[in-house]
């Protein structure tokens, strides 16, 4: 930049960084990285107006600025509070913050179905990470969990409202990336839901990006539904010449089969910028309809943070991992005792796991028993 930019010094958990004026505390903390960076479930730097809602990124401002060193009376949402010169922020060094964050995690989980075993988001779910890093080991909630009637929003996107944490990101996507928003937040309070009101398919060219921004398994890729666990897949960077979008994607392989296509995401789980500095949103054609290797120019294996469960695969080649079960069983194919598809809502869409009192039992999904 030609003009000298005003830089502000901000100290977060005793680490000082210099950031341009107008930077939020959260983005300053991201510059430091690591554990001091507050978690963010609703803020998304590429979506204007996002943030402030989930309250997981609350921090304590111990000193407002050099000019006015008074502390702020309440914890503030770091994603929507800008740094001032000389500001002192406490994130993980503040008991108050840790306690509040733990509270927020608990609030987010009390009505979450915790159906991770049948949720496609498992393994790349921000709520899983958040609970693991900031939550308590058990729940104190003893009431029925909230459920919602199912809404079909078309052949590409699966909506599981019970899993939603109302981050509003998908609403911003529709507002900012498509020319006509057809879904939104309906109702109020603890009954608020993402829906279209009149049942209709979301079919805008860029609407598939709601899947990438959803921090939980509320909006998932229907073409990938129950196909595989993300940690069994190998992410590979690829591109194609697309007239609609940047065409830069991550292909998720198992063997030589492309299971799904997503945008490329950075270490904060956000869509990466393309070399021209614009967010690398991808179109529905790239995401849902180009599932052959021949559709793409392969760039190479995508590096995954080693802390991520996805890196557990350790793939080096594109070969199908050898299944050992047949060896163990002397050449016989395994007999499925319970197919996960049977117990999921594929066959019994009317059953919500969260509505079953106590632990779910196979009887609950007995196809011969009337629902």
């Amino acid at each position, binding site marked *: 930049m030609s003009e000298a930019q005003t830089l502000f010094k901000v100290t977060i958990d005793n680490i000082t960084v210099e950031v341009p004026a107008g930077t939020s505390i959260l983005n300053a903390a991201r510059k430091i990285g690591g554990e001091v960076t507050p978690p963010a479930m609703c803020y998304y730097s590429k979506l204007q107006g996002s*943030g*402030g*809602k*989930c*309250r*997981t990124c*609350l921090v304590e401002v111990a000193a407002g600025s050099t000019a006015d060193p008074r502390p702020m009376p*309440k*914890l503030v*949402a770091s994603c*929507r509070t800008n740094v001032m010169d000389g500001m002192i922020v406490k994130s993980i060094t503040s008991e108050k913050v840790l*306690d*509040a964050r733990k*509270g*927020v995690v*608990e*609030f*987010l989980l*009390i*009505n979450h179905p915790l159906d991770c075993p049948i949720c496609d988001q498992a393994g790349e779910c921000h709520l899983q990470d958040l609970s693991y890093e900031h939550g308590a080991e058990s729940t*104190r*909630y003893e*009431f029925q969990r*909230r459920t919602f009637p199912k809404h079909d929003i078309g052949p590409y996107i699966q909506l599981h409202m019970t899993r939603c*944490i*109302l981050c509003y990101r998908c609403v911003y996507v529709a507002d900012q990336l498509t020319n006509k928003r057809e879904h939104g*937040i309906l*109702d*109020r*309070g*603890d*009954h*608020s839901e993402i829906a279209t009101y009149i049942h209709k398919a979301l079919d805008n060219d860029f609407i598939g990006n709601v899947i990438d921004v959803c921090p939980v398994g509320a909006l998932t890729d229907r073409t990938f539904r129950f196909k595989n666990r993300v940690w069994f897949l190998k992410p590979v960077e690829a591109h194609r010449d697309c007239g609609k979008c940047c065409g830069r994607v991550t292909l998720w392989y198992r063997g030589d089969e492309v299971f799904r296509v997503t945008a490329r995401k950075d270490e904060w789980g956000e869509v990466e910028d393309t070399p021209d500095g614009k967010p690398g949103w991808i179109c529905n054609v790239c995401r849902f309809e180009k599932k052959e290797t021949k559709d793409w120019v392969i760039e190479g294996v995508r590096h995954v943070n080693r802390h991520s469960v996805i890196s557990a695969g350790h793939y080096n080649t594109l070969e199908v991992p050898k299944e050992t079960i047949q060896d163990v069983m002397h050449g016989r194919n395994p007999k499925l005792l319970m197919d996960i598809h049977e117990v999921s809502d594929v066959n019994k869409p009317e059953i919500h796991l969260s509505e079953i009192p106590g632990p779910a039992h196979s009887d609950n999904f007995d196809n011969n028993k009337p629902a």
Partner: protein
Amino acid sequence: MGIKLLLDKAHVEGIRFYDAYRREGGYRSVEKALKMSPNDIVEEVKKSGLRGRGGAGFPTGMKWSFLAKPEGVPRYLVCNADESEPGTFKDRYLMEFLPHLLIEGLIVSSFALGSNRTYIYIRGEYAWIVDILEHAIAEAKANGFLGTNILGSGFDCEIYVHRGAGAYICGEETALLESLEGKRGNPRIKPPFPAIKGLWDSPTVVNNVETLMAIVPIMNMGAEEYAKIGVGKSTGTKLISACGNINKAGVYEIDMTISVEEFIYSDEYCGGIPNGKKLKACIPGGSSVPILPANLLLKTAKGETRYMNYESLADGGFATGSMMGSGGFIVLDEDQCVVRHTYTLARFYRHESCGQCSPCREGTGWMEKILLSLEKGKGKMSDIDLLWDIQRKIEGNTICPLGDAAAWPVAAAIRHFRDEFEWHVLNPEESQTRNFGLAHYADPIHVPTV
């Protein structure tokens, strides 16, 4: 008889209409104000010590002076008539009987702030009051107090009534502005504050009905005289809407020098508790402020008389005091169940949460469920501590004050009436057939340790 500044003419025949209102000296303050400079009016309001009557008690003059005045950008004044806090019904009374007083206050305030389009955001349920206000606006306009070039001053002003549609949250000023823009009533994340970026991104002041009406006597009598009424930082008069178990429920104007005891028992005000029952507890400032047991209500923890003003009601902080809030005075007699009452308030806040931020959306529902099971005799001892912890995790961690408003009543009920909660747990059957009663809540000062 105390001093009455707003209600002094409330009983004059026909005061709802322009002719009688004008005959009684109405609109004098407009004539006076339009000859002053807007800044001088702001200074007068500052000097008067007037504090916002909506609940937070923020100094009005200071709020006005924060209003940004960029060139070429319109500024707006919005009247908050979304009165919805349980126990509060003073604005309804004021607007229903003295609509012209509000219009007069609005014209003066609009001039002071430079608002040419002023809106009254009224709660949707007050449908008939919309007609009353619109009639008053039409009368004021017909008599030259609204429209273009008012009284030859060069100042133009229109007032419009905007009717809400059932949402307590729209009483929060930024949710109100969202609603006025035709959106869901989700409070905005602050900063920026409305004084910088409010209605349609323009600088905006949002004031309560009673606050804007108080501008009229301030202009008429002068700030200095106004500030002499009341005590300390509680200047002027305050309207109290009293309800619950009292003989004379209604709206009273007080000068903030009377004691709480006088207010409850004197015939001039509430007239005591019906059927010779004893006072058990009271929420003195609208449902969100802490409930106090009789002993701490009438006297502070120091044993001093408690008065009906901002400072005295707050004496002792939340440990042993409460707040003036919006002036919604809810009295509970010895037959009332604090657990049940707290449950209905928790249900109210759950119902009214906008659902935008997680602690409020999830926490209010959770508190309601636990309170219902306690009330039904199905609770556990640990539920009481759990409730305490939940309210603590909501308070201060939400986007807007609704989280605090939902947390405080629960916290105060446990703080002061814990044994009543415990009794519900220990006597699940008996608690369904009778109330815990007065217990020691009216005993001489008992300072809780929580």
